[in-house]
């Protein structure tokens, strides 16, 4: 039996009357690629926001490696080992690609104000190592040739990859990707799928939301289907695809 890395228990959030997520339960095993799917407005991003700490759940619990993490802020969950990307790309636009990855390492670096002011040898060494690590991660993600480019002038697909790289560079145990393939062409989607697999091969668990069914079915080990904030189905891609309720939600919903 594999270890559980993330456990979501009765997770619920109430937006002034609207239950965007309603008593949601699932567990993700270590080393898995886990998909969260559902029609528009099903509550997928909201679930991600509660796991990563961007939103506080109204009730319910989130556990990471046996530690309860709901109620933490994003900067805290990042340090605990959750890194994420965003559905609407959130890059540091006037920074270069490399600088984005230096910010991505914030929680793993230690130099504060005074080491910075006095440029202590320790601070210099840490900065050099950070630059090296940023370069290695960019190389791993296929953005090595772009390190001095401003992130705002990258193509849409490259910006999505950069967000993944920025998440990856913080050495997460769990990486959360919100619609990573959105706006990508088929070639870019293929290399994204390859990248996600290589991330998992590094021992990092992946949780992703994606509307492209071919992409999701081809890459995930298990899938949780959400509809109106509730869990509709959970299982392997084959099981989920055969589930009549899921077919109904997707086809009957007129999506």
């Amino acid at each position, binding site marked *: 039996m594999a270890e559980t890395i993330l456990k979501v228990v009765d997770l619920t959030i109430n937006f002034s009357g609207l239950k965007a997520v309603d008593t949601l339960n699932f567990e993700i095993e270590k080393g898995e690629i886990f998909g969260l799917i559902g029609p528009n407005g099903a509550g997928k991003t909201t679930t991600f926001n509660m796991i990563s700490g961007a939103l506080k759940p109204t009730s319910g619990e989130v556990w990471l490696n046996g530690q309860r993490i709901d109620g933490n802020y994003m900067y805290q969950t990042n340090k605990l080992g959750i890194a994420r990307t965003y559905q609407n790309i959130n890059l*540091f636009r006037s920074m270069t690609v490399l600088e984005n990855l230096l*910010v991505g390492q914030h929680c793993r670096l230690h130099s504060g*104000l005074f080491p910075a002011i006095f440029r202590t040898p320790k601070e210099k060494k840490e900065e050099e190592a950070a630059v090296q690590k940023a370069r290695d991660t960019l190389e791993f993600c296929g953005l090595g040739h772009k390190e001095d480019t401003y992130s705002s*002038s990258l193509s849409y697909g490259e910006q999505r990859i950069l967000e993944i790289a920025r998440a990856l560079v*913080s050495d997460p145990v769990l990486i959360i990707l919100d619609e990573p393939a959105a706006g990508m062409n088929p070639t870019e989607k293929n290399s994204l799928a390859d990248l996600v697999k290589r991330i998992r091969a590094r021992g990092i668990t992946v949780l992703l939301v994606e509307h492209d069914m071919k992409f999701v079915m081809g890459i995930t080990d298990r899938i949780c289907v959400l509809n109106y904030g509730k869990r509709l189905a959970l299982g392997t891609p084959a099981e989920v695809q055969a589930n009549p309720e899921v077919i109904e939600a997707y086809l009957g919903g007129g999506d």
Partner: protein
Amino acid sequence: MKKNGFFETKKGKTIAAAVILALLVIIPLLMDNNIILKQNKYFYVLLCLIGIYTIITSGLDILFGYTGQISFGHAGFFCIGAYGSVLLTHPGWGLGKLTGYVLPPILSILLVACITACIGALLAVPASKLVFHFLSMLTIAFNQIIYLIANNFSWLTNGSIGITSVPAVTILGFSFSTVSSKLRYYYLVLFFVIVLLVVKTHIINSRVGRGLIAIRENPTAANGCGINVAKYKIMSFAISAFYVGLAGGLYVHMIGFVSPDTFIQNTSVIFITMLLFGGSGNLVGPILGAAVITFIQEGLQSLADYRMLIYGVLLLIIILFQPQGLSGLGKTFSGLAARGKGGESNG
């Protein structure tokens, strides 16, 4: 778009800085040997003021240009620095009046900078939760409160009359009295300007500085990258206040006099204007802004009637045609040149 250009390389920057520094040291020295300029003491006051305003705008730049937080209350910090240093060094007021002991001015300048930083941090606790327009209002209110304290608490500050005979800076028995030699005070100010600009550069190019810029660029992503946004905003306010508090101390020991009307709301607006005029979010912009606006404000005293007009027209030109401020001119020109040569290729 990529980074390029000689003055963006490390070597280019070092050379440019060394040349400018040499000029700043040598030129006033030569001028001091010129009998005519030597008579005109006001020239040095102008240079000192530019230095002091450079410290202020650079400090404001850390908060506004890099962290993206507005403050219309920096004259409040300036006031705390100035009055603070008077109250710690003046034999007839504050500490001197209460205990009979005073601090040496140079020590008190550094101490008030630290005190101002603490007050900045306190103000930032509520400020760190506010967005742009509410933050503007909070900082305006802060400025107003500090001004009213300076103006109305006569037992402490002598009210609107102000305090005269502020002691001069003395370091190891070496007097920086502006009566005997203004050139010396210029070098003292220059020293602080250089140290604080180096400190600013070091902060900006560090993990902390990246955190500040990340907040300006995208607070959500900054939070997701492990940056405690509220804490970093507080830190930015404190650093910014440190700069302005120190400038307040330097100012008051140069002028030798302090009164509340220096620290009215308008002064805060002028600080912001200097920064926007010169260009925010870089090293050179605040210096240019401080220099040009100070020249216009102080240098054109004889043209008093037209001063505000010149000032207004220049500001309008900058806002309309050069939103990045004077420091962006280089980029604008190289952009124009590239367009002229390369045709559509740059488009």
